């Protein structure tokens, strides 16, 4: 399978969107384009499994390399392993759902869908790049549309949020760039991930570049204390914007932390592991407690994302194969779950025109489909077995528990404790929204429309596929984690 097609399809879709005459055609083009991409990524998963089943053991599959700038040693080097395939699957599910959830965008429709597809192109490119320069390029492609999406189509204090998000993420990118240049200069003038992984990067470089890269990517994935763009950014973004932000953008960071920082710099990873664990435990715990006090549904989900992404970083910081597998699973699970959560919040907001839980109540009576989804996604968030969150969190716990020393034990127990706090805030939010007496002004509310239902079903399929039969994801991801672990030994 030629991986270039994964970048080409979004580009063609984006251009086609620009050429469409009316909004309806724009929507359908975007939907069909993202649908094709979804099929392609499923095909990629199938092809990947087939290749592995036929004994293809090389680390990266479907590799291809085209030289771009010879003097700088930059090339378009593409390839995937199980971890990338998992992330690509996640992205394609979220994109389809996001497009469907934007069906009613009337303001500058063409530009809106163009930016959505452009953003997704950045994400796909990011996940398949094996050249750090190209990877960085795609990272930037995925950031900039977000600024516009929030600034133009957002709500509330959107200018402030858009600025904050863009500046903080740009700050993160700047750190990443510094770190990459450091690697480039001190380790043989190459940006090639595979080559870099085969040479011994000087320990001094690692000590400087690891924190740069980890914090830089970490900002994307809400590393404490650089997470404050998350609540504001999410709450001001339009529904699809929030879905993309939480479902895709935050995952770019986690993937970067794992694939670039941790994989290339094992000594750095070991040196800073404890700091990573402390910060991520704080994020998990403190994010959960901060969520408890929120009353806006989007803020609730945003803060809970801080907490859940803390699990990703915790899994990476634990440096065991099982924990890293769990971290990747958590990225996929959280991406699907939080995208669905934002979708449901969007459906509710569109009808009630409020996101304050105190102003709602009893909505289960009038919107059974939507609210059932809210329950399911809430249960997923609090780690109910049968849904994806449980599998990912338990894998991280099992991996984290492999360290017998007190420090790791305490961090793990604290992380485990968050399952109770999560239950408190989720049930509080869901209870206030869905249960209790119904307010009179909400009597006439209607349930989800076809596009909303379809979006939800797409995401639900992903959540259930992981939650009910996690074996496939585990088998996909854990060889990738194994490769990273071998280098970390």
């Amino acid at each position, binding site marked *: 399978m030629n991986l270039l097609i994964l970048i080409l399809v979004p580009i063609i879709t984006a251009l086609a969107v620009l050429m469409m005459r009316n909004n309806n055609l724009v929507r359908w083009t975007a939907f069909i384009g993202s649908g094709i991409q979804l099929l392609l990524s499923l095909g990629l998963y199938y092809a990947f499994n087939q290749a592995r089943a036929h004994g293809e053991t090389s680390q990266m599959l479907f590799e291809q390399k085209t030289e771009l700038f010879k003097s700088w040693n930059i090339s378009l080097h593409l390839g995937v392993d199980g971890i990338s395939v998992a992330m690509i699957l996640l992205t394609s599910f979220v994109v389809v759902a996001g497009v469907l959830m934007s069906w009613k965008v009337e303001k500058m429709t063409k530009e809106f869908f163009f930016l959505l597809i452009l953003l997704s192109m950045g994400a796909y490119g990011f996940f398949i790049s094996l050249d750090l320069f190209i990877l960085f390029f795609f990272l930037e492609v995925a950031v900039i549309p977000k600024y516009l999406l929030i600034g133009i189509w957002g709500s509330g204090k959107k200018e402030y949020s858009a600025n904050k998000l863009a500046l903080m993420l740009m700050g993160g990118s700047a750190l990443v760039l510094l770190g990459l240049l450091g690697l480039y200069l001190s380790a043989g003038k190459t940006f090639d991930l595979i080559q870099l992984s085969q040479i011994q990067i000087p320990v001094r470089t690692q000590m400087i570049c690891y924190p740069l890269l980890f914090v830089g990517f970490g900002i994307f994935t809400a590393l404490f204390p650089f997470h404050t763009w998350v609540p504001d950014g999410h709450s001001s973004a339009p529904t699809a914007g929030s879905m993309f932000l939480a479902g895709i953008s935050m995952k770019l960071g986690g993937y970067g932390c794992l694939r670039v920082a941790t994989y290339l710099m094992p000594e750095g990873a070991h040196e800073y592991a404890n700091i990573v664990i402390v910060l991520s435990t704080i994020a998990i715990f*403190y994010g959960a407690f901060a969520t*408890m006090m929120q009353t806006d549904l989007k803020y609730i989900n945003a803060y809970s994302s801080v907490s859940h992404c803390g699990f990703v970083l915790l899994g990476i910081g634990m440096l065991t194969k099982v924990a890293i597998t769990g971290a990747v699973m958590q990225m996929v699970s959280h991406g699907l779950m939080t995208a669905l959560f934002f979708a449901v919040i969007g459906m509710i907001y569109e009808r009630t025109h409020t996101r304050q839980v105190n102003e709602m109540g009893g909505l289960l009576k009038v919107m059974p489909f939507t609210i059932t989804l809210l329950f399911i996604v809430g249960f997923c968030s609090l780690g109910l*077995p*049968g849904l994806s969150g449980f599998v990912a969190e338990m894998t991280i716990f099992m991996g984290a528990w492999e360290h017998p020393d007190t420090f790791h034990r305490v961090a793990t127990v604290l992380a485990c*404790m968050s399952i*109770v706090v999560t239950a408190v805030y989720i*049930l509080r939010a869901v209870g206030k929204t869905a*249960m209790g007496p119904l307010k009179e002004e909400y009597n006439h509310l209607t349930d989800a429309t076809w596009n909303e239902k379809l979006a939800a079903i797409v995401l639900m399929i992903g959540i259930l596929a992981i939650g009910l039969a996690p*074996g496939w994801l585990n088998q996909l991801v854990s060889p990738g984690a194994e490769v990273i672990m071998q280098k970390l030994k």
Partner: protein
Amino acid sequence: MPNPTYIILILLLPLASFLLMGLFGRSYIKNASGLISTAMLFVATCLAFYVAYGYFFEYGNVNGVYQKLIPFKYTWLEFSKGVSIDMGILLDPITAMMLVVVTLISLMVHIYSLGYMKGEERFATYYSFLGLFTFSMLGLVIASNIFQIYIFWELVGVSSFLLIGYYFEKPSAVAACKKAFIVTRFADLGFLIGILILSFYAGTLDFNTLIQRLTSPESMEFKTAVASSFLGISALTWGMVLVFVGGAGKSAMFPLHIWLPDAMEGPTPVSALIHAATMVVAGVFLVARLFPVFALSTPDALHIVAYVGATSALIAAIIACTQTDIKRVLAFSTMSQIGFMMFALGVSKYGGEEGLGYTASMFHLFTHALFKALLFLGAGAVIHFVHSNDMNDMGGLRKHLPITHATFLIACLAISGVPPFAGFFSKEEILLAAFQHNPTIYWIALLTSGLTAFYMFRLYFSIFWNKEYHPHGEHHGEGGFAMMMPLVLLAVGAAAAGFIPFGKFVSSDGKALISEFHLQFSIAPVALGLVGILTALLLYKKQNSKPDTIASSLNALYKAAYHKFYIDELYLFITKKILFNLVGRPAAWFDKNVVDGMVNATGNSTQTISEKIKGFQSGKVQEYAIYFLAGATALAVCGIYLWK
């Protein structure tokens, strides 16, 4: 050896019922949903009986020992070699017994609900939740892997949440379902950490291997687990105690019981199924499942089980004497009876005659399921008739509800331990086990069984005798055949189940345990039970002021018991005042003002600085010339200084 993989069908039928009713019930099946679900569960029940029969009488017993069979196993999620979550079936005596109990009670509740829930708007949803619960509970009892039990444990919790919150428009029901979920979740945290500890030392999650490794003193796993310690207590003991915390939460043991009384907000048949007969005994089942490890490797943890059980039994019995909501009386009585099962396990040893407590506990679990479900369903019929939960609104109902009255009386006699009803036999065994191993607990148990007889007959007389009942408005009799049939069937069970030679089938080590019947030993408990019944008769058979007089003479104690010893208030204080106000609020404030404040400050200061220095770019050549001169001078000064 036969391979009863068809056990899986017993699970799949309720699951199918859940999916069918959940997806299509609202729109397509509607009123037929009850009948379809019930039919599916009937098939499952027949299968469960068939499995139990086959296991106990045909293939389970090899050379006098009941085997632990694994007819089915599927690796669900593999962490590393040997450590994986498997979905499997572990068939041993307690599994076979629980299969029968769960399906039977669930079937009774399904049938009963056909009458009780008739005309409900969300009838199909109700049946789908019942299906989900039954599926999860069955998954729990067949689990062959400790993580599998945890998975179904959580699913049981969520079905309980959904069913308690069935009347979701009632704020009290919403509060109750949240409370039930969060309190049990808190306990499950202990369970989870316990699993992590046990799996770390045992190097497996599989029950059979885990038990085998952690009970044989020669194994490496056992040695390391005992050698490593935390705060002076061995890791193994920590693990087992934490697992028990999970069990205590689900089984509403003191001090994690606060959710159970509130859980009575759910529909009454649900209380009968979940909060009386099946889910709440999951904790007992869990301790029984890991019993060899408790008994052989961590006797200290088992002591904790015993004392927690005994304390819960006594406290709940005292509280039950003061409550006026009939469902709450039954809830506290459930808690008390589960306390009996717990301490019976707690005082037991492993193997042979010494293992009497184990057999007694399982026996009581079995009989209790029958008579407690009967009590709840009877209470449901009463509530259906008077439209109130409060004892003070009832009285004299024996003429209006003859069948309910008769069956309720049988259940009361059974729970009070009056021979020859079922409760008598199981409770005698428990008392005997306690008497042999732990005198303190024996006395507590004796006192509690006296109290049990008192409060049960207080309930009975207040409902069916006391004042005359004057029906007002239209009322619809006793409920139809659907509601009466389960009552009668369960009453037969509650009356006769005691004659099952339980020790022959269920014992701690799988070998038959022949318990003898000691006449002289039974005198004390039976006499005490009769005293309790007589006291209740004097106080409550006719309407009089004596109960109030006694209550006011016991002023402080009565008040404290009536308010459930203020444990709820204590929890509220901890959660609302401490967690919300002292942790949550500061965390949110800190995030908004300090962390985010720094981000904003960075942004603002950048803006301020650039505001200040933007004047430099004025575009006036003269100013640039001055800057240039000043810069050049400064450089020159620096250069000269350094050069020297």
